C-alpha cells in the first residue's frame, strides 16, 4: 500500500480544480450511464457493482491498479480503457476528449460529496 500511495502525484500537478468542469463531469457521468457499472459520488442511481466503486477516487494511487492517477492518464483511460491498460474489461466509451477530461476532473476533484 505504501508503494501505491507513493505513486500518487503531488497535489500541485493536478490542475483540475475548475468547478465548472467538475460540474459538467458529474452531469456527463450521469447521462453516459457510467453508473451502470460503478458507484459514483453524487449519483444516487444507478450504483452499479460490476466495476470498482469510484468513491474517493482522489485518494486512489493507481488507475485500475496500473497507471499513475494523473488527469491525463485518467481521461485517456475513461475514453479507451483497453488501449490504456491492455486487457482491461472496461470497454472504450463513446465520449470525446474534452468530455473525458471533465469526468476526470470530477473524479479527481475529491468527490465533492
Amino acid at each position, binding site marked *: 500500500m505504501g508503494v501505491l500511495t507513493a505513486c500518487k502525484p503531488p497535489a500541485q500537478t493536478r490542475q483540475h480544480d475548475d468547478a465548472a468542469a467538475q460540474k459538467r463531469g458529474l452531469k456527463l457521468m450521469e*447521462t453516459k*450511464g457510467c453508473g*451502470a*457499472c460503478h458507484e459514483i459520488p453524487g449519483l444516487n442511481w444507478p450504483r*452499479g457493482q*460490476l466495476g470498482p466503486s469510484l468513491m474517493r477516487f482522489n485518494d486512489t494511487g493507481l488507475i485500475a491498479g496500473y497507471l499513475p492517477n494523473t488527469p491525463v492518464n485518467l481521461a485517456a483511460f475513461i475514453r479507451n480503457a483497453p488501449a490504456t491498460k491492455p486487457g482491461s474489461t*472496461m*470497454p472504450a466509451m463513446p465520449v470525446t476528449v474534452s468530455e473525458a477530461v471533465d469526468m476526470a476532473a470530477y473524479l479527481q476533484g475529491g468527490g465533492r460529496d
Partner: protein
Amino acid sequence: MTEGLAGALWGWPPPVLDPAGPYADSVTVLAWALFAMGVVVTGIVVAALWVALRGPERWRRVLGGEKAVWIGGVAFPGVVLTVLLIWGLTLTASLTKPITGDEMRIRVTGEMWWFRVEYLDAAGNVVMRDANEVRIPVGVPVVFELRSADVLHSFWIPHLSGKLDMVPGRTNLLRAEATRTGQFGGVCAEYCGGPHALMGFVAIAKEPEEWQRWFDARVAADSVQPLAAVSTTNPQLAQGRELFMENGCAACHRVAGTQANGLAGPDLTFMGDRATVGAGILPNHRGTLTGWIGDSQGIKPGNRMPSYDRLSAQQLDAIAAWLGQLK
C-alpha cells in the same frame, strides 16, 4: 444522444408544455385552459373569503344568503364544468378516433416493466418487431394499438400525444403525430408494481424518406436476418453469440435468424440500433450493455431478467459486443 428517462421528463419547458405535433397541441391547449380556470376560481374563492372575514356588512349578508349559494355553489360550477367537459372531450376526441383506412399502425404491449413493439401492415399482420422504442415518420399520423400482457400500464409520450391506459384484454387506440424530427421520451404513466418508475421508451421521429429506407431494411432483416453468419468471423463476436445461446438468454429473447426465439423479454434482433438499454433508462453503448447483463437487478431492482454476475467480465463484454453489432 439520449438521456433515457431523464431526457423524457426533465428540462424546461417540461415536455407537456412543449408539444411537437397536433395531437399534443390539443392536450396542451386544454391544460392551459384548465390552469386558467383554476386561477379564476381560486381568485373568486379568495375574494369571497376576504368579504366574509373583513368585508362590509351589506356584502357579507349577500354572500351568506341563499341566493349566493344557489348561484355560486350550484349554477356557476354546473355550467362551467359542463362546458369544460364538452369542450375538452371534443378537443381531444381526435386522439382516440378509430382506424379509418391506411394509417400507419404500431402495436405496443405493456409488459412488466418494458414495452413490446410490433409494426403492423394495413391488414394487421406483424411485419417487424422491436422493443422500448418506436420510430415514426414526421408529418404522418400514427395509430398506436395499446395492449397489456399483465397489469394496467399507461402509454405516454408527452411531446406527441395524450396518455392512454394499456388494459389487459383490450386494445386501446391512441393517435400521435410529430411535426418535427427528434427524439422524444415516453413513460409508463400508471403504477404497475416494482420498478414501474424505471419503465420508459423513446419515440424517434425521422424525415419520411429516411424513415421509409430504415423501415424497409428492418422489415427485410426481421424475416431473414443474415447476422448469424456475419458474426462468426470475429472470435470475440462468435464467443458472445455462443454465450448468448448457452446461458439461457435465447430462451427469453428473440434474435431473428438465430435459434434464439424467446418471448419473455424484449426482442434483441436490432439491439445495437436501439437508443436505450433497460427500457428507456440508460443510453445504449457497450458499457451500459455489459453493466445491464451482469447486474440488471442492481440497475433495475425487481425486473424479470436475472443478473448474470456469474459470468466473467470478459464473457459479459463478449456478449455485449455481439449484441451491440445487431443492427
